[in-house]
């Protein structure tokens, strides 16, 4: 048996409130291309970041050529023969192509302390030839097209091949998501050419591509490695099934508790487009309805949510709130029309951590608590106490700093804030992210209560189960477009695998 070039054994990695990797083992052999697939949050990117030295695993070990190693930084990973092509590009627009390729490794071009640009550019030309990119290496990367920059990024990783003796591993995190078909094909032929020298780990949400290029595929789910299979034995449909796993029944969804939406439209979205994010999105949202939006990273659903809440502008299309044409130039315009956003980054956008529970709760409705110039502290506290009780928030008092509460209770404070502000459209962006299981169930209950009271909710769930279970309808987005709409009324819930097949 041959020793794998790169292997991890029993690696775990936790972040506050979530186990991103749970006892994952994984190996890659010489000249092999290994695909890594899974839903959002399954742990793919975390795994690559562990291999690349950006994260340190909590448990488990990493072996390079059979020797245990501790990878402390991306640079260290590089010197150990592991390079990564980042999903978000790490090419610096202000440096030239050559400078980007050799960033941090300029020593070999130094002569008497000065850089030889000529030699650097010549070496870069060689690296660029590998990816069949014929740009001038002295050009600034900011002047290249996005796809060309992605190729530079790949050339940068491939340059490892000529710099390091021995076998190398290249990690490709969604390298094709911004490439045209032709460029993606080129990338694949490069990968095949280099297999004698390098191994590849390939992440993509385009499952056909994964099957096409890789020899073996690992399927991750909820931080666990659930299946390892040979690509030639697998079909896209198998992968779909493996990604979603268990089938859930209606008890889990508590369908009986789900409100029935009224026919009144509160929000109407017409061919909303934001270049580079999403295009031509249309839907209507009704009173008392939960509209789920499902999609993988890069589907554009998060950006859509932010546009609907006025956080970022969109390019074209129209937005109507209760029949009235609206234009949101900032979040305060949306709030004024009764639209609120519960953001995914709770600690950055949801809460002011050093503020008290009461101060956070009234933040979006401050004018209601002011007489003259003065805040009516007694009223504020009374209302805060009322909501603490109503949402059963566990806090010592209304004057406790919100930063010291648990994630679940913090999220309830965010929800209370919007309820006090009296919004009637609430956009929930990953409302259960980073909170524990019991608290998640509480948040689900609150969502059901809200809709029973007539609020309309747009839900971007952490998991498909969440989206299907809570929604009356589900929009599925892929690459910035709506690919399917499912009715999800109680007793008639779509299967996860149906959604997944439109997501990837």
């Amino acid at each position, binding site marked *: 048996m041959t020793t794998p070039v790169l292997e991890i054994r029993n690696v775990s990695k936790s972040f506050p409130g979530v186990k991103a990797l749970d006892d994952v083992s994984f190996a890659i052999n010489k000249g092999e291309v290994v695909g890594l697939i899974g839903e*959002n949050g399954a742990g793919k*990117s975390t795994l690559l970041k562990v291999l690349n030295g*950006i994260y340190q695993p909590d448990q488990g070990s990493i072996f390079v050529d059979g020797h245990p190693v501790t990878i402390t*930084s*991306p*640079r*260290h990973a*590089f010197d150990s023969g592991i390079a990564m092509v980042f*999903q*978000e*590009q*790490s090419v*610096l*627009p*202000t*440096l030239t192509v050559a*400078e980007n390729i050799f*960033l*941090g*490794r*300029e020593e070999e071009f*130094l002569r008497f*302390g*000065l*850089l030889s*640009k000529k030699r650097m550019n010549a070496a870069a030309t060689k690296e660029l030839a590998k990816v069949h990119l014929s740009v001038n290496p002295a050009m600034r990367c*900011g*002047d290249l*097209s*996005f796809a060309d*920059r992605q190729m530079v990024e790949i050339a940068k990783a491939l340059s490892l091949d000529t710099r390091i003796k021995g076998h190398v591993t290249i990690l490709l995190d969604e390298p094709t*998501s*911004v490439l045209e078909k032709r460029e993606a094909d080129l990338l694949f032929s490069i990968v095949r050419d280099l297999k004698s020298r390098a191994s590849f780990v390939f992440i993509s949400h385009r499952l056909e591509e994964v099957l096409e290029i890789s020899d073996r595929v690992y399927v991750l789910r909820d931080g666990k490695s659930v299946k390892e299979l040979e690509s030639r034995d697998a079909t896209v449909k198998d992968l779909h099934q493996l990604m979603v796993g268990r089938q859930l029944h209606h008890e889990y969804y508590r369908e009986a508790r789900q409100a029935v939406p009224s026919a009144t439209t509160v929000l109407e979205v017409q061919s909303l487009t*934001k*270049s*580079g*994010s999403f295009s031509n999105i249309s839907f209507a949202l009704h009173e008392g309805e939960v509209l789920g939006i499902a999609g993988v*990273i*890069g589907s*554009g659903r*998060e*950006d859509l949510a932010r546009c609907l809440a006025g956080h970022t502008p969109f390019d074209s299309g129209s937005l109507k709130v209760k029949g009235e044409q609206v234009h949101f130039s900032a979040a305060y315009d949306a709030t004024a029309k009764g639209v609120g956003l519960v953001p*995914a*980054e709770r600690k950055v956008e949801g809460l002011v951590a050093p503020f008290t529970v009461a101060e956070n709760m009234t933040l979006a409705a401050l004018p209601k608590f002011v007489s003259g110039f003065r805040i009516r502290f007694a009223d504020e506290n009374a209302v805060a106490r009322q909501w603490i009780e109503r949402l059963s928030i566990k806090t010592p008092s209304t004057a406790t700093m919100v930063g010291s509460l648990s994630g679940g209770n913090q999220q309830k404070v965010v929800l209370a804030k919007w309820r006090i502000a009296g919004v009637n459209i609430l956009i929930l*962006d*990953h409302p259960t992210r980073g909170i524990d299981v019991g608290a998640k169930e509480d948040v689900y209950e609150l969502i059901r209560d809200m809709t029973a009271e007539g609020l309309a909710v747009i839900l971007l769930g952490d998991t498909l189960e969440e989206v299907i279970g809570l929604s009356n309808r589900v929009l599925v987005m892929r690459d910035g477009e709506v690919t399917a709409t499912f009715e999800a009324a109680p007793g008639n819930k779509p299967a996860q695998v149906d959604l997944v097949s439109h997501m990837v």
Partner: protein
Amino acid sequence: MYQMFLGGALRVKAAALAGGAWSKQWRRWAPVAVLVGLCIIIGLFNPNFFGGANFVRMLNTAAIPLVICMGVTFVILMGSIDLSAEGVIAICAVAASMLVANDFTGIAIGLFSVPAAILIGSLVGLLNGFIHVKFRIPSFMTTLGMGFAGIGLATAILGGVMVRISDSSFRDYLSLGRVFDIPAAVYIAGVAVIVAYVIQERTRIGRWVYAIGTDEATARNAGIPVDRTRIIVFGIAGAFYGLAGALSAAQIGRGHALISQDRLFTAITAIVVGGTALSGGVGSVLNSVIGVFIVIVLTNGMVLMGIEPYVQKGVQGLLIIAAVALALDRSRLDVVK
């Protein structure tokens, strides 16, 4: 999800770039266009502007600001700011004037005082960088405090008096002596610009400055010793201030604590007007050269047109605002403090 935002933002930016190639080129050459335009307008109002004597005068006025700007530019390219220039120059000017033949100390080491001033400047600069990086204090605070302390130190050493320089060769070699009718200070500033350009283009530190200013996380991931580079860059800036201090002392033949008054303001105006972005990563020492000449030509033009000198500072203030507002890439920052 956060990554998705980044991805989205980048893609949008890429689209904007593709469409904005023309405006990009324009931005790159705008400072030069402004300089040429200014010269033409002022020349039309006052033909004396184009006289050889006036050009030499302007070059001479530009010499010290050029040297200062070479230092500050590196710090700004890195995304930081250095407000300590006046203080460091004051220390170095006083030190230089006390090291050549003078009426205050018995020391007279002649031209060796120049490397001494540069050394002192770079040490203070390194201290700036060290405090900023190791104690994690924003550079504007560190250098503001250090700048005040520098002026205080210069004043305290002299007890409020001035040092008179009696070494005329020091003054000749550094400032007053003329070759082809052009003062020595101009040649020295020219050499400083070349040195700065070589540092920027041909050394690792120079390239790393851009990498750090553009995206510090990526720079770190690439294995660049970010903290060390930051400290060294503040040291390099200090070295240029040291040279500027020696030039200032030679120019007026005296050393005192207020020798560098208003220099910082002019330097920042020049750098910003030259097109170097305060957010870091964009610009060049050559941009700053253009910027210095824009400021000098404008000042010269205002003098020629008989505008009160006190108006200059106001005009510079407006220039800073206009230049930053026009050049700032707003898509890059959502929260500005």
